């Protein structure tokens, strides 16, 4: 509790004790009673009255201090001394509770995002010196000790350690880094001393960009948030005028000025819009914080709102649903062993830089002995022809086989087929394809379970590969052989076709997808650790490249929106009920104070549930 809050607490206790004492010993009516009850009233309410007076001087009429003052002074004037003091007391208790609750939630949300490193160690004359990360420049060498947060993005020069990336990705399994690996700021080095060469200044490092993004997320307000602020602007004056009307109009016809005045005062107490104004942004803030803990960065409350209406999810294939790394997935030799087939192909491709050549060389898993290759010729668009141990080896596609007149047969496996021929005889083929990510299938299933009616895949890959991948994942539609511009066109077409009330989400790895990311209702970029373009273009950024996080983000957004709606309905409902009851003289001023601060506190507590959204059991 802050000092200011402690002071209020002391005043609350003091005036509560006084009130109880007065209730027992003092008279209920008369000027002595008025004088006596004025003491606890002053103790608990002096600041409210002071602020009310000051704000009126500034031309702020409908502020809550003023409303509370009018209501309690009015109660005093109508002879309800106990009520006046007690209502003020109750109000202050509510306010205190509210400020403590908001402070707590603010703290727990900012603790989630507490990834700012406080120092960087640099070596000067053999000694380690702690400096501000902002003062370290690109190319400098820094030392990271076990247990420390990595202050800047860089490359490991020396040392080995396991790095905890959970603050950024929500992934609890640590990652092992060695010399030559990139490290990302904000992660924690758990074991081992690392010597790192800095590759980015602090302002451009991952940690600074993420913090910037999170801090600015509050400025992109959701529609519900704007609605509630607009509503509040109308609500307070409207209730105040209703109070005035209630105090003046009915008594003209039925009399009983005091009764109607008292009912009007109840209106004034309820007219404060704080519960709404506070709980809606708090819910969104909690939702963004809870998502952040899972490694899902949401750039603003408005995106959570749109995401919750998702009806169509469009995926890019390579790098999003698949690993984006090509691997040998099948080896079908003819008359020779599998190992021999791989070796022949790898040797022939050993001078090539093509990604397919790389994956075959990876499958060989050893450095080829280049002295055994006596000649090598690259045949563009077809393959290679090499002489290995005196034998002519041709490695390539169908066209190459046709050209050299070798009879080949197609493979039932989907992917890129590489044929091998030795001395003009067919020796078999190798199939190379991109692997699905482990969680891709689960991701699609979860999305469907959450009511996403259409999942679409866009790919630049061949029709056969695209359709096979989509079938294995159980996706609804697939569009293949698309160029980047074609992807934008397809997304625009899908945008036109969808139900206007539902939203279209595009998920990509962010490398070539920037235009599509910004065209979709919501653009989600994956694997953003280190990619500037992705963070810029997307509305939601997944820190790691796990597609299952999309369904998680969706469920967090739905839950947040449900809590927002609950709060709006609850706060307005209670206020409306107390207003109606109050108008007929069925609600006391106590009920009115509850409808004001009590509802605020409950709404805040409810909003805090957003923070725990998406936590896995």
């Amino acid at each position, binding site marked *: 509790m802050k000092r200011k809050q402690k002071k209020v607490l002391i005043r609350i206790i003091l005036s509560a004790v006084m009130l109880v004492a007065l209730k027992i010993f003092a008279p209920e009516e008369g000027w002595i009673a008025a004088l006596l009850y004025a003491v606890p009233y002053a103790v608990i309410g002096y600041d409210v009255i002071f602020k009310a007076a*000051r704000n009126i001087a500034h031309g*702020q009429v409908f502020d809550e201090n003023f409303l509370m003052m009018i209501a309690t002074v009015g109660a005093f004037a109508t002879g309800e001394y106990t009520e006046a003091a007690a209502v003020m007391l109750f109000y202050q208790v509510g306010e205190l509770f509210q400020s403590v609750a908001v402070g707590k939630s603010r703290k727990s949300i900012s603790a989630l995002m507490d990834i700012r490193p406080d120092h960087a160690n640099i070596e000067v004359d053999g000694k380690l010196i702690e400096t501000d990360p902002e003062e370290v420049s690109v190319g400098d060498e820094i030392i990271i000790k076990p247990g420390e947060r990595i202050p800047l993005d860089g490359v490991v020069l020396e040392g080995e350690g396991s790095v905890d990336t959970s603050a950024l990705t929500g992934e609890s399994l640590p990652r092992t880094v060695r010399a030559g690996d990139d490290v990302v700021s904000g992660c924690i080095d758990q074991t081992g001393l690392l010597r790192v060469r800095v590759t980015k200044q602090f302002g451009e490092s991952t940690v600074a960009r993420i913090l910037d993004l999170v801090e600015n997320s509050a400025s992109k307000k959701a529609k519900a948030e704007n609605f509630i*602020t607009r509503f509040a602007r109308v609500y307070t004056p409207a209730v105040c005028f209703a109070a005035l009307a209630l105090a003046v109009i009915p008594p003209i016809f039925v009399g009983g000025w005091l009764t109607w005045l008292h009912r009007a005062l109840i209106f004034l107490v309820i007219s404060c*819009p704080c519960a709404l*104004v506070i709980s809606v942004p*708090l819910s969104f803030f909690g939702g963004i914080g809870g998502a952040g803990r899972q490694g899902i960065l949401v750039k603003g409350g408005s995106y959570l709102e749109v995401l919750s209406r998702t009806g169509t999810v469009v995926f890019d294939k390579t790098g999003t649903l698949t690993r984006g790394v090509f691997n040998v997935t099948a080896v079908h030799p003819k008359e020779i062993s599998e190992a021999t087939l791989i070796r022949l192909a790898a040797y022939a491709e050993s001078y090539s830089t093509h990604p397919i050549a790389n994956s075959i060389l990876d499958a060989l898993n050893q450095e080829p002995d280049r002295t055994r290759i006596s000649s090598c010729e690259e045949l563009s668009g077809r393959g290679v022809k090499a002489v290995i141990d005196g034998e002519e080896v041709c490695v390539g596609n169908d066209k190459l086989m046709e050209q050299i007149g070798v009879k080949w047969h197609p493979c039932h496996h989907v992917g890129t087929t590489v044929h091998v021929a030795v001395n003009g005889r067919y020796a078999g083929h190798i199939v190379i394809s991109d692997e699905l990510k482990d969680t891709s299938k689960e991701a699609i299933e979860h999305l469907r379970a959450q009511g996403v009616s259409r999942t679409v895949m866009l790919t630049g890959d061949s029709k056969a590969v695209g359709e096979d991948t989509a079938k294995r994942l159980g996706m609804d539609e697939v569009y293949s052989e698309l160029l980047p511009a074609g992807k934008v066109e397809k997304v625009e077409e899908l945008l036109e076709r969808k139900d206007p009330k539902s939203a279209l989400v595009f998920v990509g790895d962010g490398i070539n997808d920037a235009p599509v990311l910004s065209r979709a209702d919501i653009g989600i970029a994956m694997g953003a650790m280190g990619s500037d373009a992705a963070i810029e273009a997307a509305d939601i950024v997944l820190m790691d490249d796990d597609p299952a996080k999309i369904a998680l983000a969706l469920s967090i957004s739905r839950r947040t929106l449900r809590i927002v709606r609950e709060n709006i309905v609850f706060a307005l409902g209670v206020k409306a009920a107390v207003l109606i009851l109050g108008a007929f003289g069925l609600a006391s001023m106590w009920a009115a104070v509850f409808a004001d601060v009590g509802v605020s506190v409950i709404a805040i507590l409810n909003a805090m549930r957003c923070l725990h959204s998406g936590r896995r059991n």
Partner: protein
Amino acid sequence: MKKTFKLDELDCANCGAKMENAIKKIDGVKDCTVSFMTQKLTLEADDDKFDQVLAQAVKVCRKIEPDCEIVIK
């Protein structure tokens, strides 16, 4: 130019909303958001008028909620 300032002692959400509206009405302000949760003011205004606008924003803020202060670094 867009700058973010910390708000000290912003205790009531409704005051934040009122401040945001009032600052938006200042001449030269392109956009402004007051976040009660992060206790931050984001102000976007024309480059040449920025200091002038900021001074006015401070004044407006003091008028609405005298306890709350825009921290200018």
